[in-house]
């Protein structure tokens, strides 16, 4: 048997290149390209009345300056609505360059192309734009009041209004023995990859073709969008995602204005043009996520079993909806987590504001949904005086109930049906890991020492690996080199390694012979992209299926060569051999030669495939009717619906009794993503997710003022955590295979960040004794809450006292 590669913590094949400075990220390409820079709106809502470029055009080194007036054809039309939805009744997208109205600070107004970025910025400073300012809508409350409008076309600032219901929720809540309401708030954060966006376009005037490099999560998407916008045949456009310095969702949005304008300018100028987003641009002109207001009403019995759950969400989608309403749809469906409420109704409004657009950020609406659900679970436990883990347990879907159909439609338009999972087992592991049952004693000890500590918990289920499809192609060269390609892109997830592991396992070849290419439309043209924890599930399975095709072909050819039944053959380290007879063998490299009948021999090994070699069957053509030359195979994986991973986290926090500073003492994770291809990489994904979650819970927010200015558009003031802010993360895994796909895997990319805000809120609430309903929370805010609590404005937790019947946070 070959050493098992699937499931092994194999070191990444990407790393030797990346740690020696040999990565090739977007700005490492095209040193001689012209540089683009943009004049961006300084106002959140305004009408452009005049643009004067006369002072800028003379700046030495400026090649061109473009405004909306210069755009032509489809580049002058609105950017596409990528994901329409029937309830998105007032969709709105922006333009590559604003024609008249600007709807958020940072929206591009003019483009400068110059010999270098320094000069381009000099010219931007000299372009005079006159604006007439319009009323500004910032924040969800201002948006839903509808007093001022972002778009005249969207009354009440409502982009979408959606309702999903299973059962008669109102009746179930009314009939329940106990009822609670909660009003919750969660603020904006952003993906904030260390590398911003970037586009580099090369126009070939001889070929009339375009090559685009983009720091994107979807090269096929960018290619198609640019071809459509520029009116070019798809065959004349290629798009490559080079090394990408992190994505986390923001780079699945496309085409960004710059992704249209840079190729457009390259063609127009017959020159290479590059734009590299700087950090300030990333803050004000890419995308954010998370901001929601949530009202929860829940009815439950004496055991804490949820009989009816009604949730209303107000989701801030920013100035435009190019990515549709994926985020609030996910919130409203994934909110249910591992639980089965008797009846469930979710109603949401997606609202326009004069702020940066909202598109998926790692977790994509799930952190908000889990926050709502887990705050509710804690509130129920508090009301009944029950253990918080027990209340959750009471509501769990049981393993024997799988597959479990919630009766709702998920973000992919398919049923929200869980495929597998063992929630009681996960909870038992978590309680063991964090020492749930010993916490009371720990707390007593800490309190005796004048310290304040709290324990928090959060559970989630995550739909991963959504369709529609991905594909894989494998070709074995006559040297034995195995070329693997898939269309989706990589941003640090180790795809080169895990896809090679799959191929090594399926084909019986050595890892070092496998070479994986992702995100290059020259190599694979059909793909969707990397998002929703789908890469391993989608491309992994597609590549496995492709490998099985290649294996079958290899065994068939080897069977002929060895005069053996293919069923008696195995492949070990790239050699096909007869089981039990190691002498009878042929290398895959030789099979690659034999698979491709040749007229010309170009080297020694190729001679074996030439027309006078061997003893061919003269009654058959060299390539049979149902055959193709070459040892290669291709396949696609398209699932009927998503597969659902899950996890449970717990944290112990300490809050300073004087300063309200918050320290995470322990952070524990139980994670179940089915079979793991590479546990080291899965663990790394969880770690990174938790750190982003901690950022979202305690540090990060987008601080807009009333005028729509982002006050913290820098790493000085947007507080992404350093190592000093991220706790040590303790993890344990459960592997409940997915029955949906050949490899039995589920996605792991987003998992880590999903419940963190809920967990930290739970822990701080436990430490402080009053409800935490707004996240993220900083020491200054916690300190204020203490004062409000002390002043009687903020009721404390009941801890089961049941002294009143009103809601804790109505």
């Amino acid at each position, binding site marked *: 048997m070959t050493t098992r590669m699937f499931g092994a913590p194999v070191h990444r094949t990407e790393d030797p290149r990346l740690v020696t400075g040999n990565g090739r990220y977007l700005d490492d390409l095209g040193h001689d390209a012209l540089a683009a820079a943009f004049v961006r709106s300084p106002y959140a809502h305004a009408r452009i009345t005049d643009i004067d470029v006369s002072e800028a055009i003379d700046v030495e080194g400026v090649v061109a300056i473009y405004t909306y007036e210069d755009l032509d054809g489809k580049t002058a039309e609105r950017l596409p609505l990528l994901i329409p939805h029937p309830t998105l009744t007032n969709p709105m997208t922006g333009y590559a360059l604003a024609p008249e109205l600007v709807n958020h600070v940072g929206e591009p107004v003019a483009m400068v192309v110059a010999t270098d970025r320094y000069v381009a910025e000099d010219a931007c400073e000299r372009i005079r734009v006159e604006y007439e300012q319009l009323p500004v809508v910032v924040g969800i409350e201002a948006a839903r009041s509808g007093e001022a409008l972002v778009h005249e076309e969207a009354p009440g600032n409502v982009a979408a209004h959606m309702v999903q219901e299973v059962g008669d929720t109102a009746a179930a809540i009314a009939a329940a023995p106990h009822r609670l309401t909660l009003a919750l708030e969660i603020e904006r954060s952003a993906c904030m990859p260390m590398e911003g966006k970037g586009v580099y376009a090369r126009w070939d005037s001889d070929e009339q073709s375009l090559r685009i490099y983009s720091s994107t999560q979807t090269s096929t998407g960018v290619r198609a969008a640019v071809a459509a916008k520029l009116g070019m045949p798809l065959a004349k456009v290629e798009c490559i995602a080079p090394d990408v310095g992190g994505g986390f969702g923001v780079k699945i949005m496309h085409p960004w204005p710059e992704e249209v304008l840079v190729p457009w300018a390259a063609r127009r100028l017959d020159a290479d043009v590059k734009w590299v987003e700087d950090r300030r641009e990333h803050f004000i002109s890419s995308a954010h996520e998370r901001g929601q207001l949530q009202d929860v009403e829940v009815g439950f019995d004496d055991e804490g079993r949820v009989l009816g759950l009604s949730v209303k969400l107000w989701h801030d989608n920013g100035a435009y909806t190019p990515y549709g309403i994926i985020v609030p749809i996910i919130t409203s469906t994934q909110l249910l987590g591992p639980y089965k409420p008797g009846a469930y109704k979710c109603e949401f409004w997606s609202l326009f504001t004069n702020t940066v657009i909202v598109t998926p950020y790692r977790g994509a609406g799930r952190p908000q949904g889990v926050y709502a659900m887990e705050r509710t679970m804690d509130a129920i436990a508090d009301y009944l005086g029950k253990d918080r883990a027990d209340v959750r347990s009471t509501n769990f879907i049981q393993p024997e109930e799988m597959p479990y159909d919630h009766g709702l439609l998920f973000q992919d338009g398919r049923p929200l049906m869980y495929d597998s999972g063992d929630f009681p087992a996960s909870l038992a592991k978590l309680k063991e890991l964090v020492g749930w049952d010993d916490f009371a004693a720990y707390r007593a000890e800490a309190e005796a020492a004048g310290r304040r500590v709290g324990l928090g918990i959060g559970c989630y289920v995550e739909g991963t690996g959504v369709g529609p499809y991905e594909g894989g192609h494998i070709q074995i060269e006559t040297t034995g080199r195995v070329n693997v390609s898939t269309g989706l892109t990589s941003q640090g997830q180790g795809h080169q390694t895990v896809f090679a592991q799959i191929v090594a396992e399926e084909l019986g070849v050595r890892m070092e012979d496998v070479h994986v290419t992702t995100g290059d439309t020259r190599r694979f043209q059909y793909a969707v992209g990397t998002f929703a924890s789908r890469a391993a599930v989608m491309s992994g399975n597609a590549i496995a299926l492709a490998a099985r095709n290649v294996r079958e072909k290899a065994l068939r050819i080897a069977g002929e060569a060895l005069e053996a039944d293919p069923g008696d053959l195995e492949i070990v380290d790239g050699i096909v051999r007869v089981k039990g007879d190691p002498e009878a063998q042929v290398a895959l490299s030789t099979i690659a030669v034999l698979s491709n009948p040749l007229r010309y021999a170009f080297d020694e090994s190729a001679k074996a495939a030439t027309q006078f070699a061997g003893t061919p069957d003269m009654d058959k053509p060299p390539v049979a009717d149902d055959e193709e030359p070459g040892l290669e195979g291709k396949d696609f994986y398209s699932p009927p619906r998503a597969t659902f991973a899950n996890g449970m986290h717990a944290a112990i926090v300490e809050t300073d009794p004087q300063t309200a500073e918050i320290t995470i003492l322990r952070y524990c994770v139980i994670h179940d993503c089915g079979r793991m291809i590479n546990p080291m990489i899965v663990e790394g994904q969880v770690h990174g997710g938790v750190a982003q979650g901690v950022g979202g819970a305690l540090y990060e927010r987008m601080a807009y003022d009333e005028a729509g200015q982002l006050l913290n558009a820098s790493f000085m003031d947007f507080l992404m955590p350093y190592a000093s802010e991220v706790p040590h993360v303790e993890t344990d895994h459960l592997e409940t295979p997915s029955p949906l796909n050949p490899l039995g895997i589920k996605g792991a990319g987003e998992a880590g960040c999903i419940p963190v805000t809920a967990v930290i809120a739970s822990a701080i609430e436990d430490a402080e004794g009053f409800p935490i309903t707004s996240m993220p929370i900083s*020491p200054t805010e916690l300190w204020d809450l203490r004062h409000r609590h002390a002043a009687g404005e903020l009721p404390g937790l009941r801890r089961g006292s049941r002294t009143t019947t009103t809601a804790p946070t109505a």
Partner: protein
Amino acid sequence: MKPSPFVHHAPRSVAEAVAVLAEVGHDGKVLAGGQSLIPILNMRLAAPGHLVDINRVAGLDTVEVTDDAVRIGALVRHALLERHDGAFAANPLLRQALRNVAHPAIRNRGTTTGSIAHADPSGEMPAVLALTQGYVEAASAAGTREIAAADFFLGPLESCLTEGEMATGVRFGRFPAGTGTAFAESARRHGDYALAGVAAAVTLTDGVVTSVRASFVSVTPTPDVLDLTEAFAGREVADVDWVKAAEMARDHVDPDGDIHATADYRRMLAGVLTTRVLTEAAATALEGQSR
């Protein structure tokens, strides 16, 4: 995010440097470590036409410890002063505070004199200069002068350095025998600008408090000194309850609120930190006396 063009000057002496500054007037900026200046230039929040890069001026990179001061030249990087054992022995507060200045990579480049000349009330070293009753040494085409800390800071980001004048170094005072010092700050993230910070010095004579002083980071418009001597002098240090000092600190400071913390929160922090640093400084002073 690229700086605007400027003319680069690389003087070899202070005399050359101030001659250039005199010539370019308000359009000139001195570049030493650049760790505060260059971010501002990159964001184009400032666009001076001339940068007088003093990094090649000889003789500005020394630390001298004298009987009454620790004197550093304008090119002494934070990291050099932080690691300087002689300076630490002469005034431990320097190292105590420098450890809180941003991150090591910034301290390797940024200069202590530069951060004082920047006069940022959220900088640690202006507060230290104030507490040690130090001086800034300045030069211009007209000559040199030294300016007491109490006179140097006029307001947030505003010093009394005039157009054409540069800081050539600073002198931190030394505390009398029997003094213990401490520094503490609270920042949202480790290495960030403090929400509030306090430097303190407590002097004892035979176990009796003779002097108690504190200065503040981020909670006063300029780094002025709160003298608490009157409230605590003459008491056996073992009997002192430093919690009392918190209220005086809260009364003294005048913080602004921003997106990271409210003014009230910063005021509270200033009080809590004052108690903490005074407790530590007193313990250190006592330990020093018993040795």
